[in-house]
C-alpha cells in the first residue's frame, strides 16, 4: 500500500507546539498556490463529472436531476458501448498497458547489462517516440499507413507486387485496431521506462554478490530474487504511468482514421465515446457517466498494480 514519510505522533512540549503551529502556517502559504490550482483543474472537475453523471445536461439549459438514468442507459441501451467501446478499450488497455509495461521492463533490464555509452544511445532511441507530440505521431503514421499508393507501406507492397489494390489500413474496421496497437506500443516507453532503468542501475552491486554466494545460479533467478524486489517502487510508478497512459490514449484512433466515430467503431475507445457524446451530441450528463466509468476502470487497474508492487503494510 501507499506508504509515505511516517509522521510520528508524540506528546509535544509547549515549544514544539508553537513550532508546529509555525510550521503549519508556513506550510499553508507554501501549499496554497498548488492547492488552489489542484482543486480548480483536477479535484473540482472530477467532482463535477461525478455530479453531472446524475443529470441531464446539454450545456444550454441548467442540468436537471436524472438519478441513475444515465448509468441505467449505459448498462441497458448502449449497444455500441458493450459491443465495441468496452471490448476495444479493454483489449487496447491490456495490450498497451501491461504489454507495453513488460516490454519497458525487459528493455530497461537489457539496457542495464551493457556499457554506459551505447546504453545512453539505445535508451534515447527507445524513449524518442515518447517525446513526439500528438500532432507528430498522427502525421507520421498516417503518412506510413495511408490507404492510397502514397502511403509508404502500400507503395512498397504495390511495388513488390504483393498486392493489386492499396490496403485501407486506416479506414477499414479490420485493420485500424492493430495499427492503433502498433503505434501505441511504439510510444509506450515513457517515464516509467526511464524510472525502471534508473532503478535497476541503482541496485547495490553487493546485493548480487551476496545472492550468488547464497546460491542463485543464473540471470533469471537474479531477476526474480534481486532485481524485481529492489526496483519494486519504481516498477509501481511505472505501472501507474502505463495504466494512465493506456486509458488516456484515446486520440490515436481518431488521429489515424481522421474521424470520430472511427470506421464501424472498430477503433472506438472509451475516451472517444466520451467525446462523441459530449462534443458531437451534447449529452453531457451521459458523457459524464461514461467518464466516471473510465475513472473507475483506471482506479481498479491501479489498485491491482499496488497489490502487485506495493510494499506490504507491516
Amino acid at each position, binding site marked *: 500500500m501507499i*506508504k*509515505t514519510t511516517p509522521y510520528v505522533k508524540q506528546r509535544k512540549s509547549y515549544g514544539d507546539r508553537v513550532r*508546529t503551529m509555525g510550521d503549519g502556517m508556513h506550510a499553508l502559504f507554501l501549499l496554497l498556490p*498548488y492547492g488552489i490550482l489542484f482543486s480548480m483543474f*483536477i479535484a473540482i472537475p472530477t467532482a463535477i463529472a461525478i455530479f453531472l453523471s446524475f443529470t441531464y445536461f446539454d450545456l444550454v439549459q441548467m442540468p436537471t436531476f436524472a438519478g441513475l438514468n444515465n448509468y441505467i442507459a449505459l448498462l441497458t441501451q448502449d449497444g455500441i458501448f458493450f459491443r465495441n467501446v468496452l471490448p476495444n478499450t479493454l483489449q487496447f488497455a491490456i495490450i498497451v498497458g501491461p504489454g507495453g509495461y513488460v516490454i519497458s521492463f525487459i528493455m530497461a533490464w537489457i539496457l542495464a547489462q551493457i556499457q554506459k555509452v551505447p546504453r545512453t544511445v539505445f535508451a534515447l532511441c527507445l524513449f524518442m*517516440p515518447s517525446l513526439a507530440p500528438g500532432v507528430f505521431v498522427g502525421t507520421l503514421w498516417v503518412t506510413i499507413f495511408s490507404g492510397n499508393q502514397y502511403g509508404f507501406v502500400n507503395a512498397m507492397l504495390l511495388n513488390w507486387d504483393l498486392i493489386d489494390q492499396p490496403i485501407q489500413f486506416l479506414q477499414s474496421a479490420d485493420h485500424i485496431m492493430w495499427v492503433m496497437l502498433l503505434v501505441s506500443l511504439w510510444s509506450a516507453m515513457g517515464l516509467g521506462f526511464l524510472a525502471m*532503468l534508473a532503478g535497476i542501475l541503482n541496485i547495490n552491486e553487493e546485493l548480487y554478490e551476496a545472492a550468488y554466494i547464497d546460491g542463485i545460479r543464473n540471470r533469471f533467478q537474479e531477476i526474480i530474487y534481486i532485481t524485481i524486489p529492489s526496483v519494486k517502487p*519504481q516498477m509501481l510508478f511505472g505501472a501507474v504511468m502505463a495504466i494512465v497512459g493506456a486509458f488516456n490514449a484515446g486520440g490515436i484512433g481518431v488521429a489515424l482514421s481522421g474521424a470520430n466515430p472511427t470506421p464501424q467503431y472498430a477503433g472506438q475507445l472509451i475516451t472517444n465515446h*466520451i467525446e462523441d457524446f459530449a462534443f458531437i451530441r451534447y449529452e453531457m450528463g451521459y458523457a459524464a457517466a461514461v467518464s466516471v466509468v473510465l475513472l473507475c476502470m483506471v482506479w481498479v487497474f491501479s489498485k491491482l498494480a499496488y497489490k502487485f508492487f506495493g510494499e506490504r503494510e507491516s
Partner: protein
Amino acid sequence: MLNSGFQGTKINPSRFHRSQLKFYLILIPISLFMVLPVVFIVSQAFKPIDELFRFPPTFIVERPTLANFRHIMRVASGTGVPMSRFLVNTVIVTAVTCFLTIIITAMTAYGLSKKKFKIKNGLLKLNQAALMFVPAAVGIPRYLVIVGSGLNNNFLAHIIPFLAMPVGLFLVKQFVDQVPDELIEAARMDGAGEIKVMWRIVFPLIKPALATVTILTFQAVWGAMESSTMFVEDDTLRTFAFYLGNLAIGGNPVMAGVGAAAGVIMFVPNLVIFIAMQSRVMSTMSHSGIK
C-alpha cells in the same frame, strides 16, 4: 570479483564482453523500429513536391529542399493571422508556464516534505491518487471551470490549467526528501529565513528534479492544442501547436510535406531539451519509486 560466473552478470559493466552481444541483437532491431519512422518523416519534410509523389517512394530524401518549411513561414491562418503571432504566443506561454510550474512545484514539494502539520499524509496520498488522473475524462468539467472562472478566451487559459502537475510534484517531493533536515536546521541557526532556506539550500540541491519538471511541462505545453481549440475563440490568442496541427491534419497529399515539416518543428525542441538534460532526468527517476 568473486568468480568468473559473476563477472558476466554485472549490471552497468565497464567493459565490453562477448556475452553482451545477445543484448545488442535484441536492442538493434527494436531501436530501428523506434527510430526509422522518425527518420522517414524528417526526410519527408525535406522532400520537394515531385519527390513526395514519386512511385515507388524514396525513404531518404534525394533532393532536399526547405520549401515545406518556407511554406509554413509564409502562409497565415484562415483568418489572416500570421504564423509569427502564433509562435510568439507559444514562446510566451511555454516560458511562463515552465517558470511558474517550477516555482509552485518546488514550494509545494518543500512544504510537503519538510514541514510538519496534521493533514500532511492525507495530502500526499491525495496527490499520489492524482497520478492516476486521466485528463481526457474530465474535458467538459474543466471547460466549465474555465468558463466559470472567466478564463475562457483569455491568454491565461493556456497557462493556468497546466500549472498543477501531480507527477511533477511527486517526483520533486521525493527529491526534497533526500535533503538532510540537519542542513536546513543549520541554515536556520545561522538566521536564514524561510525564503533564504529554500533559495539557497533546497533549490540548488533539487535542481535535477526541477529540470525534469521543466521538460515535462515543456512537452505538455509546447505541443498542447486542447487549450487553443476549447478555451480560446480569438485566433490571435491561439498557439503555434494549434496552427501546425491544423496544417498537419487532413491527409491531403499535397500538404503531406508541409504536415511533416510542421511535425518536425514540434518534435525537435522536445528532443533537444531532453538530450541536454537527460542525465538530470535519470537521476530524478531513480527517486521515482512509490513505496
